[in-house]
């Protein structure tokens, strides 16, 4: 049998259901992998391995006595450390909250628990989720499994590294300007941000409540869909929660995507690393070979993506963290403190203006779907940069690292549309690239169908980092 820690959640689930492996064997395999790799990667803030092992024994007994709950029963997962877990430290990536132990679970933690998932621990993250790099001086920087000198991306950096190397079956992240998709792309795995409101934010530390989306990071498309299905559904505790249908799994029955039109926004192909451009062109050719019609489209308002996002995100983040910013600013990681203070320079009028322009922006991006089913682009213009690099070079021109990392992700936070990243190949330095596929609001199914077809046509899901 292949390395248990690296096969997909979907396959693990079938093995558990068929009693070919037990949840305890799977948890033990992950405990072994964590002990081998954690010193290098620093994926976790808190490990709950003793509790995980005890729970796995209980669950193994449940399954052996005919009480199998479904695809997540006995599956080991880990959560970004901003999802509240009752009785387990939840820090939001800052030592300020190092002794904070919530009394209640976040809705997602509760739903994963009810589905029979086993929590292995709480994952490292950019402090307060306020940065796309995965750097954290409080708990140590996160390290990319493909090259530990490189960024994992963030803010869900520990989620990216842990799933990529096989420290857990799946992880949960949150995405405000790309924080699920960025680390997934830089670490060579799948990250799926569903429609805004599909997964409850109750018990999740906000970064920017009108842009925040929880979402899974997994090794395959089908794994992400299983995770979303386990966590979604209306939650009266989250005022933005929406009742939605489960995503049917029948996208796995065929990789024929004839009849689907793929739009390529030309603005999303500008200022992209040359090697990344080649990967994306190859990926588009694969989609065409699978039967999709390829169509060029334009999204001129993309030039305002960063401005609209910043004018909403920054004041909301500053507002949420206002009390610690006033009382103990020196304890906040300096790059995050600078962003929080900079948010004070956005006026109320600019915040409202950005929220109003968001409607025009949404209408323009939505109108593209009149002629296409999904939009495809690189997830990132670049491959993983070095840790602590303020700027990156793209074909001879220097750019701000954070600005580049969020550039192609923000449109789908502003609009709330579902977007996935799937691995699409490697650079000459063996660093992974990601293909982003986005769809209409609530059309996760078509996004998953195209992503799955692409995944199955390529060999990328079989490639893993070798630390």
């Amino acid at each position: 049998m292949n390395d248990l820690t690296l096969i997909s959640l979907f396959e693990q689930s079938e093995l558990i259901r068929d009693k070919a492996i037990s949840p305890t064997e799977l948890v033990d395999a992950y405990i072994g992998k964590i002990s081998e790799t954690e010193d290098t990667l620093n994926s976790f803030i808190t490990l709950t391995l003793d509790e995980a092992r005890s729970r796995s024994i209980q669950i193994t007994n449940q399954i052996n006595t005919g009480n199998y709950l479904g695809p997540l029963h006995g599956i080991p997962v880990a959560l970004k450390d901003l999802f509240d877990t009752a009785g387990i430290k939840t820090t939001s990536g800052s030592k300020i909250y190092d002794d904070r132990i919530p009394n209640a679970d976040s809705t997602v933690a509760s739903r994963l628990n009810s589905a029979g998932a086993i929590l292995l621990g709480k994952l490292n993250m950019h402090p307060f989720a306020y940065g796309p790099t995965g750097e954290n001086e409080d708990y140590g920087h996160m390290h990319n499994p493909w090259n530990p000198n490189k960024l994992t991306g963030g803010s869900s950096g520990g989620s990216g590294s842990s799933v990529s190397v096989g420290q857990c079956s799946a992880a949960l992240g949150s995405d405000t300007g790309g924080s699920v998709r960025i680390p997934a792309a830089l670490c060579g795995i799948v990250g799926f941000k569903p429609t805004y409101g599909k997964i409850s934010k109750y018990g999740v530390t906000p970064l920017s409540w009108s842009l925040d989306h929880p979402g899974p990071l997994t090794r395959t498309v089908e794994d992400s869909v299983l995770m979303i299905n386990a966590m979604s559904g209306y939650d009266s505790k989250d005022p933005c929660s929406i009742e939605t249908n489960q995503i049917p799994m029948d996208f796995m029955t065929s990789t024929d995507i004839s009849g689907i039109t793929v739009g390529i926004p030309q603005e999303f192909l500008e200022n992209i690393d040359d090697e990344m451009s080649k990967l994306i062109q190859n990926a588009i050719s694969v989609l065409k070979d699978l039967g999709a019609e390829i169509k060029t489209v334009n999204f001129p308002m993309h030039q305002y993506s960063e401005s609209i996002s910043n004018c909403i995100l920054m004041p909301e983040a500053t507002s949420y963290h206002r009390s610690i910013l006033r009382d103990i600013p020196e304890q906040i990681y300096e790059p995050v403190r600078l962003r929080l203070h900079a948010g004070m320079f956005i006026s109320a009028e600019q915040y409202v203006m950005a929220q109003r322009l968001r409607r025009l922006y949404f209408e323009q991006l939505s109108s593209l779907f009149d002629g296409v089913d999904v939009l495809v682009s690189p997830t990132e213009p670049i491959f993983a940069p070095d840790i602590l690099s303020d700027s990156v070079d793209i074909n001879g021109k220097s750019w701000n690292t954070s600005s580049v990392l969020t550039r192609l992700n923000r449109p789908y936070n502003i609009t709330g549309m579902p977007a996935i990243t799937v691995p699409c190949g490697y650079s000459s330095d063996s660093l992974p690239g990601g293909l982003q596929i986005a769809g209409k609001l609530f059309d996760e199914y078509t996004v998953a169908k195209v992503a799955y077809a692409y995944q199955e046509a390529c060999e990328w899901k079989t490639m893993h980092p070798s630390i």
Partner: protein
Amino acid sequence: MLSKEEFIDICRRNNIPEDPEYLTILERHANVTIESAKLLDDFRLEQESPAFLYRDFDKG
């Protein structure tokens, strides 16, 4: 771009600690942020969605 006086005024109103080294870096961040926000001035909101036109006093 903010004048020095405007920058200091906003810092004082928000109780931002007066560490000169920190304030120098923050001023750079603040100016980048403000320049980014100013891009939105391109819009006159003339094509705005009807739902948002209600009581739009900009339009007279």
